[in-house]
């Protein structure tokens, strides 16, 4: 009897075969792979354009084997909006940005694109600090968390109590899909792959704006070994940044 082999897992086609420059323990690499897998799974590598922001996400054009644009800081959503207006009928457009960029100088544009229900899949890597600039305070930095600009820990008196920006989007009628997962535990990564896929599918079926936040690790700037960073971020964020699907279209999309 002749044995037949079929590949069921492997190096994603849409992931470029090039060394990545992310720090040890950083989970951007996981996010990039999940994106590549979703793109392969939906067979859309030929008609998808990605827009990344400034910071570590700005390295993405080298790592994904698809058409990509690196946007100026804060401007990923407007750039993607312009692209989507022009090519949205034939191609998918997604955005991959860090939270420092998206919730800081880009927040106005995120909210307005969501209100208009632009045909965009927005993926936000939330690692609780401005990573590439050198570990500075970001809009999602936790109370008491030490960063380069809050060496004694973030104080509520000075910077306020951090807000879950993901769930802020739930008030907006034109948003189709909102979800969040932790990009550093095996179970959640598996779920996250489906969230990313579903977000792209929603766009494919012309259901407008969807948003997935990926809680990510930045051990370098947390000053912790990756295993301890996992433990800390997992317990510290379970209350304020919970995982799960918060909003999904009622009919029409099946996984």
């Amino acid at each position: 009897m002749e044995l037949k082999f079929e590949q069921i897992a492997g190096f994603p086609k849409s992931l470029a075969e090039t060394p990545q420059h992310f720090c040890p323990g950083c989970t951007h690499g996981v996010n990039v792979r999940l994106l590549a897998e979703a793109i392969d799974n939906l067979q859309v590598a030929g008609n998808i354009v990605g827009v990344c922001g400034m910071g570590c996400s700005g390295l993405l054009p080298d790592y994904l084997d698809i058409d990509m644009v690196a946007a100026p800081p804060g401007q990923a959503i407007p750039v993607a909006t312009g692209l989507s207006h022009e090519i949205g009928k034939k191609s998918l457009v997604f955005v991959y940005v860090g939270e420092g960029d998206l919730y800081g100088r880009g927040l106005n544009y995120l909210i307005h694109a969501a209100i208009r229900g632009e045909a965009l899949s927005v993926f936000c890597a939330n690692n609780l600090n401005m990573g590439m600039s050198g570990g500075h305070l970001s809009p999602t930095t936790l109370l008491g968390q030490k960063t380069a600009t809050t060496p004694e820990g973030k104080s509520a008196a000075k910077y306020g109590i951090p807000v879950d920006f993901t769930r802020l989007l739930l008030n907006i009628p034109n948003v189709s899909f909102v979800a969040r997962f932790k990009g550093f535990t095996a179970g959640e990564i598996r779920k996250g792959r489906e969230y990313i896929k579903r977000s792209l599918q929603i766009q494919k079926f012309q259901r407008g704006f969807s948003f997935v936040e990926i809680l990510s690790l930045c051990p370098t700037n947390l000053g912790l070994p990756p295993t301890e960073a996992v433990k800390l971020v997992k317990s510290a964020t379970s209350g304020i940044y919970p995982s799960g699907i918060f909003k999904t279209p009622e009919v029409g999309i099946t996984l």
Partner: protein
Amino acid sequence: MEKKLLLKGAEAIGEAAIRSGCNRFYGYPVPNQSDLLEYLVKEEEEGRSLTVFQSEDPLSSLFMAYGASIAGARVLTAANSIDLPDALRAVSYFSAADLPLVCAIFSQSGPGSGNIYPEQSDTLGILYGTQIGDGFASILTPSTPSDCAAATYKAFQTAEAYHIPVIILVDAACAQLVETVDFSTISFRGIPKNRLIIKGKNKGDKSTLTTLALDIERMAERKSALNKKRDSFLKKEQGSYKLVGEGEENLIVAFGISAIQAKRTADALIGNNISCTLFEPTSLYPFPEKPLEEALKKAKRLFAIDMSNGQIEKVLTPYIPDSVSLHVFSTTGGAVPRVEQVRQWIQQEIQSS
């Protein structure tokens, strides 16, 4: 299509843009830009082939234009003096990314919020500001609505031929000036299309666009390519200008609404037996250096008229020989130079020199 239309300067830019094949406009309602935005929305509703989009913020309208331009659209956008830094930021990115852009900038009184009346006090800001990080942009300075239309055609041709940003700098007075614009007299050359367009790789190789270059050598290579592009642009394109009269001792230089007033002043001076040559630069980058130097050869006095604290002086100084004396007439706060005032001033300056 109607050949003659009664239009404001701002509207003439919009009409000429549609006739140049512009298919997207991103804008924001601020003084003068609103006239352009409203005109284009009206034309869109009437079925012209253009999509108009009002963005949430002036900066995002510029970067939506950036995204659309990357995807192959022929885009027009605009900014007002207050948002000039935003426009210059966008110009820097378009310049770095080798993308075509036509951006109308409406110049009003500043600094700060100022007022909505015309000034030419953004001249140096734009001239130097477009060179942030050694980027560059072509800068056109039309005066009448007909000139605005012609400048728009030229802007799209230049932007698409060299893949660079082009600024149409219009003061608030020219933007509101109404005139019959004859579109049959404005010729239009074809536009080359070969440039990077990102819309999904299909079965080909991937294309990426980033203005980030983390290592020094890669960035230096980019800069040298951009410098070469600028050199070849400056070699092929001469600055445009208008010349009325020739070889007189008195040379008047002005652009924008000041040039219209200068022309009327020159007519008034002829009545008093004083003849003048009028030189109007209709582009600041590239600047019509040689024609100005030629006009200055026979001149003894140069009368520069503008609406700022003498910014035109800094533009002209490098080209003025020692044999020519420079006299500057400036109005500020939003007042347009009055013909009678300028005429008296020129006569006094001639008598006292």
